């Protein structure tokens, strides 16, 4: 199995576990932790993709809410201070990609000779 196939297989397993969590959570878990969901069914299929993708977070929040250990105060503290770090990081990454891309770009005259970018992998 190649590295890429392992990643794809792991993704498949992740999604299957997510499907199990989705069945349990949408079936009877969510109405226990959110009274607005009680008796509301039409919107539930819309949540399936989210549960498939972030099911560990779903299980963690489900546990906290079901056990009543969720502290209300933290819900009102938005992470505003992070914005500066995000803005600087984003700007640097964009500059690096644009400049890097422009610097390595090759022009393609019709008669240019082929150029090897990296050594070929030797198979045994």
């Amino acid at each position, binding site marked *: 199995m*190649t590295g890429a196939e392992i990643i794809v297989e792991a993704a498949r397993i992740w999604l299957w576990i997510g499907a199990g969590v989705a069945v349990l959570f949408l079936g009877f878990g969510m109405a226990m932790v959110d*009274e607005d969901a009680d008796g509301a069914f*039409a919107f539930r299929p819309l*949540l399936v993709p989210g549960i498939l*993708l972030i099911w560990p977070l779903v299980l963690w929040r489900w546990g906290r809410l079901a056990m009543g250990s969720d502290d209300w105060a*933290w819900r*009102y503290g938005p992470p505003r201070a992070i914005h*500066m770090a995000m803005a600087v990081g984003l700007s640097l990454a*964009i500059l690096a990609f644009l400049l890097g891309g422009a610097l390595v*770009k090759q022009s393609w005259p019709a008669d240019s000779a082929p150029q090897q970018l990296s050594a070929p992998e030797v198979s045994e």
Partner: protein
Amino acid sequence: MSVKYTPVQWNRVKYCYDALLVAGTILFLAVFLPLPPEALGHTRPVDPQITNARAFGACAFVMLSIILMIGPLARLDDRVLPLLYNRRHFGVLTCLVALTHAYFVLNWYFAFSPTDKWAASLSANTSYGQALGFPFETLGIFALLCLLVLAATSHDFWLKFLGAPLWKGLHMLIYPAYAAVVGHIALGALQSQEVTTFAWITAFLSLGVAGLHLAAALQARMSPDPQAHAVPDPAWREVCDVTDLREGFAQIAQLPDGKRVAVFLHEGQISAISNACAHQNGPLGEGRIVNCLVTCPWHGFQYDVRNGQSPAPFTEKIPTYRVRLKGSRVQVDPVANPPGTPVPPVPLSKAARV
């Protein structure tokens, strides 16, 4: 605002917003798809599938750039706030356009792969150590995954279930996703194009996004909300003077625990509530009172300023704070009351109002 959840909470404004979004997307594709190969930097005709992939890819990039510009623009200028109102639908549509791009790419370039198409796209090029010929596909897959997480968790249920701070933290994935998209284009499509128009458009949009975010972050740092001052009585903090208050509006102050309080003047009485909206933690203190209710400037959730509760049948609640007047100075108890706790408003004395 939720009572019982519905699949999509549409209203007239959202219908118009979404109709414009769809029309704009169709218009973009209708202009892009018939472009002659020379305009795209191709020396020979290209297959329609490749043109499709490029059209949807370019469309997703432009949409993502606009989405990322709306936030900082709304911070810098209130008139952009209406665009923020339904930005989540914009995000979901962008994700669908990006998925279509991926569909065309996978089913063309990897159509005859003996292995799984996704595995093939990950293994076709693994030269991660070099800039020229970097596997830009991986950057695109990463960005697509982020967009999927954001779109899949955009329903209001997720906000309430995860809590706004965690939800917002998760949705900050949009920053690395956008950086990855710029890398995907700069090290991918732009490498094979002789026409520089698209390089300039990419640079203009992405640097515009970066510049706006830096400007908004700098503005927030240079004019931060004032700190509530300590007073001799440690149980209270001073927010402002009564003369700073304007009927229907608030003064915002930061409390020692880092949270913000919004002190409103309503019908000559002072009340204090959390500045963070229960929905996405929007800045309630930057909203105003409409029909006796504090109205959030981001998506219009409303709260009674005297008890932090949304009007029935809605169920959202925010914390309230005790408030008192010391002469003309407005003071709050920095310990928040649980969400929805009624607090009697403090009337302004006649003298203080003069």
